[in-house]
């Protein structure tokens, strides 16, 4: 206390007190703290908990993934007639692009069965590609002129393109129709896009305009009488994929497919992936609670769970073989290394 300064007047006392640091647990770094330490028990239990949590999750996800039935058919090579040697020339020609494929159902597939197209070596995530769109234009009928960022597909002779940009321009345009035993299997193309995209990002009063009228035709054409919010193929395509190999939802088959069924697919092989040696695949897949078929998650969970079980065992053995009493002062450096003292 500054009051110890004997005989000093109040002024100096006050002055001194103002400089005196205020005491609080915070400023003196004495806040109550929890100081957990890694005891062997804690470490082993942590590993065991990881094991106990991870192994069931791993098993469950593996089962879920195995339950998913998936048919993958790669068709881009087979769908080029053998008399065409130059694939690119074929795809750019006006020749008939119809192609028929047969899919074998190896296992019963419960509806809904999702139909995907899968492209390979297609860099939808390239920076200039990703940027080449204009969200305002897609959403707002009044902003058809805002085409900034849409280079090089902004306008044709000064008239803006709706939807502008490379993404829309390069939209996938192969079509599939399915039949089983000559009975047509309908593909439901509704609600294949994200709901928020349909409702909020693509305007219900925005119609395609001046689309694919440029010198170079990209992919699909759009029906100019249907608003963008209902052009679900476009909406799906506009959600750019993260990786150069990607699947996109084409539609849903809402009947079960039985084991041994033969599905005949008549497809229009329109989309040019030949110029960049991209593969095209048609995928039919069911889903589980975890999504599509992917064993990796389950395997990873099982490996981490197994590893931590192994670690738990290893640490247990170590602690039994070479126990160290916690807080044993003989492990302090000055006790361990008497020569250093």
């Amino acid at each position: 206390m500054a009051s110890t300064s004997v005989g000093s007047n109040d002024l100096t006392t006050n002055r001194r007190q103002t400089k005196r640091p205020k005491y609080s647990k915070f400023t003196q770094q004495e806040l109550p703290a929890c100081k957990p330490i890694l005891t062997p028990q804690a470490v082993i239990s942590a590993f065991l908990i990881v094991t106990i949590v991870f192994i069931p999750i791993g098993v469950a996800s593996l089962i879920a993934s195995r339950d998913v039935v998936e048919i993958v058919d790669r068709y881009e090579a087979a769908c080029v007639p053998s008399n065409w040697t130059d694939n690119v020339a074929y795809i750019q020609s006006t020749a008939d692009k119809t192609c028929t494929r047969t899919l074998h159902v190896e296992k019963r597939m419960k509806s809904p069965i999702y139909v995907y197209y899968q492209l390979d070596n297609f860099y939808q995530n390239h920076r200039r590609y990703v940027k080449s769109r204009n969200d305002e234009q897609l959403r707002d009928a009044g902003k058809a002129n805002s085409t900034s960022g849409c280079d090089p597909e902004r306008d044709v002779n000064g008239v803006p393109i709706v939807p502008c940009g490379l993404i829309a321009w390069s939209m996938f345009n192969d079509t599939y129709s399915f039949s089983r035993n000559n009975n047509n299997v309908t593909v439901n193309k509704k609600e294949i896009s994200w709901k928020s995209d349909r409702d909020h990002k693509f305007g219900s009063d925005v119609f395609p305009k001046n689309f694919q009228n440029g010198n170079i035709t990209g992919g699909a054409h759009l029906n100019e009488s249907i608003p963008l919010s209902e052009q679900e193929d476009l909406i799906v395509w506009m959600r750019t994929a993260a990786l150069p190999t990607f699947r996109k939802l084409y539609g849903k088959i809402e009947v079960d497919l039985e084991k041994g069924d033969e599905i005949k697919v008549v497809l229009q092989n329109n989309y040019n992936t030949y110029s960049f040696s991209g593969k095209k695949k048609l995928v039919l897949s069911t889903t589980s609670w975890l999504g599509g078929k992917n064993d990796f998650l389950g395997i990873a969970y099982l490996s981490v769970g197994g590893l931590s079980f192994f670690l738990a065992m290893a640490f247990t053995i170590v602690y039994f073989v070479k126990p160290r009493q916690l807080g044993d002062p003989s492990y302090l450096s000055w006790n361990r290394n008497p020569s250093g003292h």
Partner: protein
Amino acid sequence: MIPRHLEWLGMSHLITALILYGYLIPISLYVSIEVVKVLQATFINQDILMYDEETGTPADARTSNLNEELGQVDTILSDKTGTLTCNQMDFLKCSIAGTQYGASSSEVELAAAKQIASDLEDGDSDLSNFPLRHRKAQVSWENIDKVDEIELETVVTSKGDEDQKHAIKGFGFEDDRLMNCNWLQEPNVDDILLFFRILAVCHTAIPELNEETGGFTYEAESPDEGSFLVAAREFGFEFCRRTQSSIFTRERISASGQVVEREYKLLNLLDFTSKRKRMSVIVRDEEGQIFLLCKGADSIIFDRLSKNGKAYLEATTKHLNDYGETGLRTLALSYRRLEEKEYSDWNNEFQKAKAAVGADREAMLERVSDIMEKELILVGATAIEDKLQKGVPQCIDKLAQAGLKIWVLTGDKMETAINIGFSCSLLRQGMKQICITTNSDSVSNDTKQAIKDNILNQITNATQMIKLEKDPHAAFALIIDGKTLTYALEDDVKLQFLGLAVDCASVICCRVSPKQKALVVRLVKQGTGKTTLAIGDGANDVGMIQEADIGVGISGVEGMQAVMASDFSIAQFRFLERLLVVHGHWCYKRIAQMICYFFYKNIAFGLTIFYFEAYTGFSGQSVYDDWYMILFNVCLTSLPVISLGVFEQDVSSEVCLQFPALYQQGPKNLFFDWYRILGWMANGLYSSVVIFFGTVLIFYEQAFRVDGQTSDLASLGTTMFTCIIWAVNCQISLTMSHFTWIQHLFIWGSIVTWYLFLMMYGALSPNLSHSAYHLLIEALGPAPIYWATTLLATVACILPYLVHISFQRCFSPMDHHIIQEIKHYKKDIEDQSMWVRESSKARQETKIGFTARVEAKIRQLKGKLHKKQSFLNILSPVRT
């Protein structure tokens, strides 16, 4: 962007890449470190235990960028006056006529006795070899040190009223035998009387009447002289007036307290010079007797004693040695009775010499004085304490135990410096003092080169001597004066000099100029490559404060120059202990951990961006939304790391002080070596691989939502980012060992903030949120795979680190781990003796400081015991 502007395209691509990969070089690290250091400095300023009540000054971190270096100091270079000492002399003890007066302050002996006693109780291993050790040890203890014990007791009793002790400035004497005229009952009354008169008369001071109190204060040439006069006044011999030819004292000789004024006619004054090391006055008292009263350095006086003046020589010498060891400044007092004839003869000579004009006047005067100052009779000796600042010896002791080397650089003369060395326990009896000096007489004759060769020779010899020393307990002290230092600091000698100095336990440089102080600091800093700290209070220390890695100014009485030049200012030297051992230790570890973690965090994050580039044809597209990247270092991971840097404590401040050895983690740089930095970087690399490839493989191509939609750029990026936020925040919680509510709030709050941000961002209009619109609530939140990925990646990321620290704790626990465990299980309370024992062991090997001195004393006593023991063993058959 139009591809035909290729140059422009290239540039923009380069800039894109720079921005993206900028996360690998953590620029935010600098910002965070600045914030952390400022907060650390605030804590230093706020530390109430470094606030000086007397002057009302708190500690002040004047710069915040050296905090962590406080924890890595290797050598402290300290000024003496004003830093270690108060520049105040206290008359503490005296030896009159072979009798010692004044309470013994040999705290070393007291502590040694205490420790030996406790060792004996514990059954110390060194002595347990002897049969009947206990009883005999006690017996012999009594035999050997009976006298000491009595002295020790007086210390114990006088310790209690320490407040009274310093009531009178310059007078710390405590012995009722001499006070209040009690000395009249002492055996050698005449000698005592003479002793007091010498104190009161033999000086050059001028009294000043203090009008308020009516007492006298003295304007003396040196503080020693002032304290003599104060002492004389307290003894009842008050010097009250000086005229041209006379000195007047008021003497209280009778027990009744009657005061008599006496006049001493001052006949001659033989001045003090550093060469003569003595001063004398020749006075005629009221009875007409002529006396020569002489005080001076003991060695000088002892050489000039007459045959019958050596009666007390032996006892006085012993006392002087004791005083010297405790660091007291000693002077011997003597007198000579002169016959009228003898005096007048000499006075003629003296006047002649005085009147002489020419170059040899000085020499003549000296020669004449020399004739007179002979045949002296020894009366006694005084011991003056150059008063240390509060807590200095304890602080030096702790700092030495923390493994710090302490050099004293002072402008004072060698004797004073050595005294202070003793009182600070930087020197002790039995320490080999290596004095490097130039032979001052021959300076003018010898060439510079010859002097240098001579010094180099001395240095080489001393180094050889240290090399050849076999005794592990042998300690060396290097004492060097300024003039010699001029040569020793020259380029071709300085490395040898430094080598010798580093080998010595303590180094004292005296009579050094401010410039030399700075040069010595530079030599230590550059020569050893270790962190140096200079501490001083005056303008003459500014150079060394600026030169050292860390400059500490004492914000005391000697003006502000040192403080203005310093990096840290404290009010008292003793606060240095807390500044270094507590704040330094903490700050070092905090900053080290923080930087390592920062590298980890940014590598983990930055590399995922880089990997993704490989999947986008290096086009510069980022997998994350721009806002995620901005927020990553700004608020999603910065607060936890700042809380690590500001609040982390491996052990509490009390433990830091109790276990000074923990400080060595800093100078040894255990927490910021390449092994650690690379380890953390590897950890970051691992985390980035796990998170990126894990997420990519999980979200590869298949549907991630139950209703069939596949993932897109936004959902993949957001999942990845969620994993990173979880992983780095869980990682930091494993790194910390001290969680207050602040850390909890920051760490878990950061994770919660991320989800809140994602929700709010997703709730904005799609114009603003683009692809993140409704991402969490619509797509990711309901998808179990999103949460499963987060859990998997987080656990997989922290698993190796958890294994590492568990393994390290299990097999090679560090000191602070053990102490944390002891504290956690409250073993320090259950087994207090263990705790005390460990904390007394927890220090670096040191040969300086009070504790080392006590140990040396114990070794000495044990040696004595040993001899006594063998002696008793020989005798014992006869006895039985």
